[in-house]
């Protein structure tokens, strides 16, 4: 695989919504490059006739319970962990500009 470039890393920070300081970029790039170079080891394995593993246990399928009403958590206890909330709702910064 082609080595990870600086601009790829900048795109990744945007995709994963993780801000990185300018000085964090070079060591991070070097780290990721060496890990990616290492995992290229897998390319030597012939997997042309192998189905990917989707569940580690054989004979385990989607677990679905009966659609019945059960107890659920109190709204207050969930809201108490929200950084900001008002009138029973989680509050976030405005996402639409207000019209003048």
């Amino acid at each position: 695989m082609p080595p990870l470039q600086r601009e790829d890393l900048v795109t990744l920070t945007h995709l994963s919504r993780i801000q990185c300081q300018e000085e964090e970029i070079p060591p991070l790039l070097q780290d990721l490059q060496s890990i990616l170079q290492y995992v290229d080891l897998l390319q030597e394995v012939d997997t042309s006739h192998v189905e990917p593993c989707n569940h580690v246990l054989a004979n385990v399928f989607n677990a679905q319970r009966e659609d019945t009403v059960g107890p659920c958590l109190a709204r207050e206890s969930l809201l108490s962990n929200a950084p900001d909330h008002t009138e029973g709702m989680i509050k976030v910064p405005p996402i639409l500009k207000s019209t003048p």
Partner: protein
Amino acid sequence: MHTLSASELSHKFKTGHYTAQEIVQHFLSRIEKLDPHIGAFLEVYHSRVLQQAQALDEKKKRGEPLGKLAAIPIALKDNIHVKGERTTCASTFLRDYTAPFSATVTDLLEKEDALILGKTNLDEFAMGSSVEHSAFQQTFNPWNPQCTPGGSSGGSAAAVAARLCPIALGSDTGGSIRQPASFCGTLGFKPTYGRVSRFGLVAFASSLDQIGPFTNYPEDLSLCMEVLSQYCEKDSTSVKAEHNDFSSTHANSIKGKTLGVPYHLLKELPVELQENFKASLQKFEEIGVSIQEIQCPTLRYAVAIYYILATAEASTNLARFDGIRYGTRSEKAHTLEQVYDYSKEEGFGKEVKRRILLGTYVLSSGYQEAYYKKAQKVRALMIEEFRTQFQHCDAIAMPVTPSTAFELGSVKDGLEMYLADTYTIPANLAGLPAISLPSGFDKEGKPLAIQLLGPQMHDQEVCQFAYHFCKKTNEPQILPQLCT
């Protein structure tokens, strides 16, 4: 009191030798005296656990039936929920997060009258092998405070090794129970994938994570597994086991069983560790277990598969920490985008960011086939290889780690740290039960260990191997000098 096994301690409570409050007071005073030097606990539930103990003493006085874990103080890794208490995952992001519900394992322990002592330290979000990535404090190895206790469940391992509690729970995604158990000289068990409910465990890599116990005695491990190994409808990966009789079967004879050994994996091990490993095999032979060489060629790909899949799953799981519904929201954020960007930047440590970025990369358009799908295919080959090998042997013996506990700060390179997980990762990739068993000490007095892996759902058999090995080695219970 702290040198007794959990089983003996509970028995002494039930027969009136100790009250639950005396037991708790004893361990609380040990924590107060010793934990400043070890740093195992992030939080100690002083008043909560004393109330629990008082209630248990009253329950006993009333003559009500007592649970299997009655009066046993147990510590939980701080990524497991206890309702109304903080779950920080050793991350700045969750420093003020209060769990609105208890994990299934917490409920199961409390239902059997265990006493929850508090929460132990870990690498942030369980990502690391040394607890050097905890946002709050360093945990030191009770056998040598210059060294790491291992990670990520290093706090739980150190707490049990220092006899600050007889049992602690950890979680194991790529060795996070077994590696610290080996570094601290305790038993550490990762059950079969799905055997113990993960409801209420903060997810790291969902196809790999398992909760399991640390103990000093094999019978305590069986006792704890008997309680924890229950089907849970709140965890869609929970499996129904036909038998959960760990305690009544752990002493079953293992004479005539076969232990497979992939000798080719030992080549790069330091001589002292090789010799110890072979001496451990010798002990199994003396018990009547036959040793058979096996070949596991795909194991050389374990670390590469793991660091693709675990980071991919982590990047997905940790996307929920966006500063909206819980966790820390950056104060400098004025727009929604900034809430995400700055909250993650401020809340996550270096290792967590590195893994999220790597996971995002291997899942990104154009690379998913080459990395993620490829890793899932090689993983399928590894699972098949184990299946074939287990037709010839009942369990597989491997080292736990390529070294004993290393000095804090000595491993600077991320990849070097990852490569040290080479022996523990395969059990997670294949969903196998695996255990780390203490096997003596090196010349510097640091603990050594051997690892056993069993076929899926053969957790009881692994515990039988563990029981007989521990009885055979029969080492007097030596305590770390720091903790006598």
